[in-house]
């Protein structure tokens, strides 16, 4: 089997299982990393990586090799993560092992951090994903737009709405950012 990227992509489109394996092995780390940024839970990210590649496997005929695999897989991964976030209920606490230890600004107390994290979790999934990628991960709005399959203007609007709702939520708890 040829390992030339373009030929692998074409073979995958035509349903080659070997090509699917090549793409899986090559992209599993990137897809996992992308999902983890959104869901912030390593165990869920592994499950969703499998879910994403299952969707990819099922949708091979709709894949367009000319547009590349990475963006397409990222879009599918984002949708899988969004579906997971919609299904999940009553899970506000973040896994302790995921959040990188932060030195932290002394002006931002532990209580404010905890309340902000909880308020963030209460946002609607589509707003949370946009805000996670744009604000927490610091990604360019164009990149976020491509991953979500929406326009840059829609990303700006979602981030704006997310921050507005977050501010309102925090203010109701007596925190004035």
């Amino acid at each position, binding site marked *: 089997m040829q390992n030339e990227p373009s030929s692998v992509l074409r073979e995958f489109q035509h349903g080659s299982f070997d090509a699917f*394996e090549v793409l*899986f*092995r090559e992209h*599993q*780390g990137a897809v*996992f*990393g992308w999902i*983890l*940024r959104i869901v*912030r839970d*390593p165990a869920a990210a*592994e499950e969703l*990586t*499998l879910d994403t*590649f*299952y969707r990819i*496997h099922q949708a091979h005929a709709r894949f367009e090799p000319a547009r590349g695999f990475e963006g397409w897989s990222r879009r599918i991964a984002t949708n899988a993560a969004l579906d997971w976030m919609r299904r999940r209920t009553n899970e506000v606490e*973040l896994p302790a092992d*995921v*959040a*990188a*230890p*932060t030195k*932290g*600004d002394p002006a*931002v107390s532990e209580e*404010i*951090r*905890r309340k*902000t*994290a909880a308020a*963030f979790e209460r946002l609607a999934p589509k707003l949370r994903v946009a*805000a*996670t990628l744009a*604000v*927490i*991960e*610091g990604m360019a709005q164009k990149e976020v737009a491509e991953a979500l399959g929406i326009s840059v203007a829609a990303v700006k609007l979602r981030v704006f709405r997310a*921050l507005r709702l*977050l*501010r309102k939520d*925090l203010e109701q708890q007596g925190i004035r*950012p």
Partner: protein
Amino acid sequence: MNTHDDNQDRLRQFVREALPPVELKLDRDLWPAMLRRLDEKQATTVPWFDWALGAGLIGLAALFPASIPLFLYCL
């Protein structure tokens, strides 16, 4: 610049402080798990022709109830 922008920056800072970026690499190969997932899905998926056969038999039984004992005898 203005208070609104300052507040926005402060809120963004709150969010970044509360939820720092996640950096974790995948530490194992998921391909064996992927193969299991594909097998499980294939095992739980009923092929379309099985559905069509079932629907055909039900339709036949509805149109010709007298054929039901014959079907049961063939099972």
